[in-house]
């Protein structure tokens, strides 16, 4: 951040326990004017935004990761601690800490306030979700609470229009004031004795300033009686997942068709507008077809994230972890790994980044190791393409789609192999003779806030499109280049691509990949597929387009059906269950684990499994007469 623009600007930080509605409040205060990036050197998400107070003060607001204390038990919590203490070099020390508390659940929050008072910064307590507290008959004497704690107190309702007015007014007053540090920083990690004393003090304050709830939250308990039921709960969880995946495929289809035909039309426009030649081929086959083949997944990614964000907002994710803890524990995974692994169905990158919630290093490593095995949306185009080309669109017993069944089998194979790998990792490589604790607050159920979900989706869409616009685009240009140069000599016969660098690379890899039934076109497509798996489809398209002209590209499925044997197609599917081909995932693993070693291990084991699976599949298929 440049200091010039910051003259006079205030820096406020939001601190609070998980589930305090901190992020919803941050969204309400900053709206779309927020930036999501990483703190330097770590993959903890840094969410920051600028807002104008009613009288025109400009405030830089940063949303710190949720925490129960400043002890810093995970990379996320260490960031919170360092920013609060002003120890993080890259971050301006906050002028004011806004401690966000769930007004219906003050015990733990007030203990945090007592701890925060010791850091010697200006502090204000924000009682969020005050509407719910009032509805449940919780009476809070704000003046008394403020006097007892020695901290200003303000109320807010992040999810209601006008619910932040009072908070903004107080922030305005604070921004206008001097905001000098309130005292010396005397914070040090609290001992268990100090934690007890602080909690006792918090309970005493509550006893004096808060009327006990007349109507406790019975709704969540009743809903939980069903959703956490040993049988019904699991059935519902599976149903939710089933609906989610149905939606990802069914709902996205029309939009995807629209996007895809839009890019086709654009390609035709470019084709007609440009003179025949290199530039025309570059724009149409390289740029438009390449980028289009990736952007087409935006609807699926958005639907998946919509579900994840809704379930998170609803308060269901913790319940899912509760139900899955022992089941995943059997395979050596932590209950909390459920959410990252679920996210990995959209994309391993957010999934791996979500492993931050797992504070134990071994658990986190195992989860990171297997997250890329979850069938991410980038594999969908490869699967769909091959399945629709090779698996007949027939129905078993009249209603089970054979194509759908194969798709399901591929997903199941991914999940089973992830469980298998984590089991092996736990028992042979990352062996430690203990299981770390699983402790998780199950928040009260809430109606998801549309605005907050929309902001979350918008952020995801932006991240995806940026990736499509940079990494994937440059890879598409590269593959086009490889497939187009050098030009064939004068009077040469056969498709131009046979003389290209791509063909040379493909031929070079051929001996290695022949045993698994891959032809040189696949070998070529696998290389740009290193950038991102879905690029392989576009690359195959480019290869066959340059080889066979436009018609072949339009009907790439038919082209494959005529050029590949069934055994090759099946081997390709088997390969893709494990394929380690995603440079971004590998980069994220490198960043998250802080070591090249784990990146290399992930790449190596996935490559080995991919080769093995394709080899076995191909040879079994050939033996059965599908060669």
């Amino acid at each position, binding site marked *: 951040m440049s200091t010039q623009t910051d003259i006079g600007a205030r820096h406020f930080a939001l601190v609070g326990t998980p589930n305090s509605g901190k992020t919803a409040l941050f969204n309400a205060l900053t709206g779309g004017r927020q930036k999501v990036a990483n703190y330097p050197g770590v993959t903890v998400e840094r969410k920051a935004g600028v807002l104008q107070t009613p009288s025109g003060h400009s405030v830089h607001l940063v949303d710190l990761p949720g925490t*129960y*204390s400043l*002890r810093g*038990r995970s990379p996320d919590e260490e960031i919170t601690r360092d920013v609060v203490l002003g120890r993080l070099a890259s971050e301006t020390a906050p002028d004011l800490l806004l401690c966000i508390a769930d007004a*219906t*659940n003050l*015990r*733990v929050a007030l*203990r945090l306030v007592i701890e925060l008072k010791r850091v010697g910064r200006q502090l204000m307590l924000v009682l969020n979700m005050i509407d719910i507290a009032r509805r449940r008959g919780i009476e809070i004497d704000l003046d008394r609470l403020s006097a007892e704690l020695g901290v200003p107190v303000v109320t807010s309702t992040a999810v209601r229009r006008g619910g932040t007015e009072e908070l903004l007014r107080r922030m305005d007053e604070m921004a206008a004031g001097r905001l000098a540090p309130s005292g010396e920083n005397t914070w040090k990690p*609290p*001992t*268990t004795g100090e*934690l*007890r004393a602080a*909690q*006792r003090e918090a*309970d005493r304050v509550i006893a004096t300033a808060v009327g006990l*709830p007349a109507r*406790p*939250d019975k709704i*969540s*308990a009743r809903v*939980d*009686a069903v959703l*956490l*039921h*040993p*049988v019904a*709960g*699991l059935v519902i969880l599976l149903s939710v997942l089933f609906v989610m995946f149905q939606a990802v495929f069914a709902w996205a289809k029309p939009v995807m068709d629209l996007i895809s035909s839009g890019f086709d039309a654009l390609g035709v426009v470019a084709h007609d507008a440009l003179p025949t030649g290199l530039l025309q081929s570059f724009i149409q086959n390289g740029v438009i077809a390449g980028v289009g083949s990736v952007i087409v997944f935006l609807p699926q990614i958005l639907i998946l994230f919509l579900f994840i964000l809704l379930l998170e907002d609803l308060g269901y994710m*913790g319940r899912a*972890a*509760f*139900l899955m*803890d*022992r*089941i995943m524990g059997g395979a050596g995974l932590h*209950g909390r790994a459920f959410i990252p692994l679920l996210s990995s169905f959209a994309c391993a990158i957010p999934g791996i980044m979500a492993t931050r919630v797992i504070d*134990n290093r071994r658990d986190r490593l195992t989860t990171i190791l297997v997250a890329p095995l979850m069938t991410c949306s980038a594999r969908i185009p490869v699967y769909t393409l091959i399945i629709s080309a090779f698996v007949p669109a027939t129905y078993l017993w009249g209603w089970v789609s054979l194509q759908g069944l194969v798709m399901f089998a591929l997903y199941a194979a991914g999940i089973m192999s992830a469980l298998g790998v984590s089991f092996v990792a736990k028992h042979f490589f990352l062996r*430690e*003779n*203990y*299981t*770390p*604790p*699983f*402790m*998780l*607050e*199950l*928040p009260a159920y809430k109606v998801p806030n549309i605005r907050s979900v929309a902001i979350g989706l918008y952020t995801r869409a932006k991240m995806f499109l940026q990736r499509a616009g940079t990494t994937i685009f440059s890879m598409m240009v590269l593959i086009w280049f490889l497939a187009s140069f050098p030009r064939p000599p004068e009077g040469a016969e056969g498709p131009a691509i046979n003389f290209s660098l791509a063909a040379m690379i493909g031929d070079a890899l051929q001996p290695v990949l022949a045993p698994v039934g891959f032809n040189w076109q696949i070998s070529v497509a696998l290389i740009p597929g290193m950038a991102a798996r879905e690029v392989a489809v576009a690359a195959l398209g480019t290869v066959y387009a340059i080889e066979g002209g436009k018609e072949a590209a339009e009907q790439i499925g038919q082209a494959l059906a005529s050029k590949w044997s069934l055994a090759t197609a099946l081997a390709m599917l088997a390969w893709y269950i494990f394929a380690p081909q995603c440079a971004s995932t590998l980069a994220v693993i490198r960043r998250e684990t802080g070591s090249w070693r784990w990146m290399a291990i992930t790449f190596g084991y996935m490559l080995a499994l991919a080769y093995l699976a394709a080899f076995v599949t191909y040879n079994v298929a050939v033996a059965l007469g599908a060669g």
Partner: protein
Amino acid sequence: MTDTVPEAAADMRLGQANRGFCGRINAIHVGEVTHGLAASEIESRLLELGFVEGVEIKVLHEGPIGRDPIAVRINDTTIALRRREAMAILVTSLNRST
């Protein structure tokens, strides 16, 4: 409410409690179980979630496999934890003996 809670209510560990158990926390004592973390760290985490001596708790739910983990009500929050960690929480039953 003439019947009083029997004074001799059994002291036990939260990790042994069944669904429907109501009790008061007597002490947090992390034993010899190796969690890979210092006993004081486990103790701190329990304290931070609100498991403090004197508070009343109720076991609301049990997980689908091996009745583990458990979901425990403390005042107005619900915390999920494994029975293993719950063994560190010593409780006095407040369920009326039947």
